[in-house]
């Protein structure tokens, strides 16, 4: 039997029907058409499906859809506010921190979670925090630079 789930997605009250064993990722992509959240493995090993669930960074492939009843979700589609992109998004563009771009939404969500709790992370802290996000194109170099630069920017420093 399908379950009727009420949740908030990117600040908007949202409801959907789902089979109990469907993942949040499947609901976001296939039911809510929020395809910015990507699927790379569905086993929690690549981070492409990263979203915020009640302010916690999680892999949406490892959340069952009925679990989000009454909770709030933030996806990549909610990171830019109106016509203003987030500093991280701007820094990813400026640093050429994406090549194919499939991992980018997950990295931006994860990096945003990092900077919200640690405004001045070291390179090592950043690398370990982002270790659950796989990128196969960049060697991570430009991603790490982009995140550290965004952090500096958010602290009001120029690097």
């Amino acid at each position, binding site marked *: 039997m399908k379950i009727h789930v009420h949740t908030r997605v990117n600040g908007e009250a949202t409801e959907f029907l789902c089979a109990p064993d469907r993942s949040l990722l499947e609901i976001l992509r296939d039911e809510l058409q*929020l395809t910015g959240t990507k699927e790379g493995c569905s*086993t929690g090993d690549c981070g492409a499906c990263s979203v915020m669930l009640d302010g916690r960074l999680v892999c949406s492939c490892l959340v069952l859809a009925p679990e989000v009843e009454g909770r709030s979700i933030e996806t990549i589609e909610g990171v830019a506010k109106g016509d203003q992109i987030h500093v991280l998004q701007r820094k*990813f563009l400026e640093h050429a921190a*994406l090549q*194919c771009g*499939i991992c980018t939404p997950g990295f931006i969500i994860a990096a945003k979670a990092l900077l919200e709790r640690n405004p001045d992370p070291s390179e090592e802290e950043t690398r370990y925090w982002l270790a659950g996000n796989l990128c196969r194109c960049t060697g991570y170099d430009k991603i790490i630079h982009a995140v550290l630069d965004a952090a500096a920017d958010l602290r009001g420093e120029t690097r």
Partner: protein
Amino acid sequence: MSDKPKGDQPASDRKWKYIGTRPIRHDGLDKVTGRAQFGADYALPGMLWGKVLRSPHAHARIRGIDVSAALALDGVKAVITGRDFPDVASEAAEGGEGANDFGDLAMNVIAREKALYHGHAVAAVAATTAKIAEEACKRIVVDYEVLKPVLSLDAALAANAPILHESARATGHEPLPKGPSNVASRREMGRGDIAKGFSDADVVVEREFRTPMVHQGYIEPHAVLARTGQDGRSVVWCCTQGAFMVRAYSAKVLGLSTDMIKVIPTEIGGGFGGKTTVYGEPLAILLSRKAGRPVKFVMSREEVFRASGPTSGTHIRVKMGATRDGKLTAAEAVLYYEAGAFKGSPVGAAMMTVFAPYKLANVRIEGWDVVLNKPKVAAYRAPGAPMAALVVETVMDELAEKLGLDPIDLRLENAVHEGVQATYGPKFRAIGFVETLRAAKSHPHYKAPLGVNQGRGVACGFWFNAGMSSSANVSINEDGSAVVVTGNPDIGGSRASLALMAAEELGIPVENVRPVVADTEAIGYTDLTGGSRVTFATGMAVIEAARDVVRQLRARAAQIWSVELDAVAWEDGRALLLSEAPGVHEPLSLAQLAGRAAQTGGPLVGRAALNARGAGPGFATHLCDVEVDRETGAVTVLRYTAVQDAGKAIHPSYVEGQYQGGVAQGIGWALNEEYIFDENGAMENAGFLDYRMPVASDLPMIDTVIVEVPNPMHPYGVRGVGETPIVPPLAAVANAVQRAARVKLSELPISPPRLLEAIDRAV
């Protein structure tokens, strides 16, 4: 002032306005906001979900398939097996990558008489939900006669080995196996007198390595959506390196004419060569035709590992000799490459690249292409070259140590340059190998001190780079902005590079140029994104198309001014009159000319279609520092510098990105990545957890040095840069580990247990 377009000047003399700058890529905003649509992001009304039933045996004869129970399941709309496909004759596949054969390709897409690897597609289902399709697959009954699988090169070559293809015979150069064997081909190449070369040597070093099958590891699984109308015409959305390749290959596998299939390339989430052939595309087309509804297939990560195209496991022996003063006298290599279930490993390219960086008069190279019960290999970034370079570069390192020479000096002594005859035959044109060696030697990294249990490795690499066919249109909008249309899926920022080249020719800001990747019916034939060819070859087409439209713009201005075409020049986005009477006619801007297009003959569209010749080879020299934990065998990469000749870097950020990405893949290949098979041929680590690709905390920053020795055959001097970066890292890491741990290695990956064993053995 000249009466000719700037482009006719030699690239090295030219003053660049946009080339070499780092604009934000045009597709970037969509990709950082989640709007960009990749393969799995498309959906259509009435869409069905496809699933593939895959062989649970690595080697089995298929005696029969009963799909009735699957068809009886509510929600199942179509089921197909090998019997639904036409027989496809053996024929070399053009326009793709590597040595593909259409007959083999068809059998790889779906098994016929035999399943040849664990994961080989046997049947496919389309149903209203993915779950029903999965359940239907479970209800298909396949009658297998399980055969003994062949899982290693040694097993494949053994006398009395089980034979994968009973009717196939080895091709190439004698001596060849008589009768059926798992040898697809054996070739030899070389020149000079090997025996004399080695007898002239003061030092001879021989090394042997085994490397495992590894995967490209793109983060986006293969995905396809196909819709077929009652007229039999199909539209296919898929993430591929080549839309025209998908069209041609699918048409061939399905026995259709090319015009029956239109392929719309989606954004692509990485490929590295792995998306240069077809897997689910023909299945989706046929299912959508049978079901009369759109069908979508998305591979799971496990399917990507088991049933796409990794690259070869290898067994390589290399012997090289040198005089006391460091001159190479002879070199010999024997290369065995796994092709997977069907012939066509990249051993040919390996034979040609193995000694390519060095001047050698006496060479002998032997290459074996061997089939076994593993997935059919596909291209992976400089296919065949990294493993060959691993062995040669470790031999070079050992020669340097034995001769008491600096490892870069030894390479400089023997490095190829313009005019030298490559070991694979032809003479090199202008190349930048020596320049990369010098830049590496003078880099601060090379002089930095090393601590206890630390070591520094040097290694070099070579890749040919490709040209091939490309089409491009450059059209001018009514307000003077421009659109560049090409047929190459953008895998790493190529749109920005192509737009930069058009901007340079047109003389307008790159932000005013929109680069577009077109489908197979909106642009002329274009070979796939691969072989490091897009910025080089498609770039050449874009430059030509832009020059075509510039010629038209000059003609329009000449018409307006009532002067001859030769009297009009194009500079900084404006037509200028080269007359004796300056000030008579104010220059006409691109916007002004565009606004008067209707008045002067109609829309302004430049076109070019070419088969690009003159791809310039790429050379790289890499430095790698590691630290070894002698108690656990763990290796930490401390510092890495990649130096490579780009000819001319169009968008330096994306050139650096190619260097860094290739290095990261190479480090993974060197240290941890491998296909692990159980005794029945099932891959044991078919997921990102145990197929250990580098994560962010595994790597240091990767320094890059872009050397620019212009390619004389490209109007801007461009060389491809995508593939060369993965050639040196295997050896750079291995050499660093060998020096840090004082061991000799003979196998990849240099995983902690393997290294600890080597350390314990050496003590």
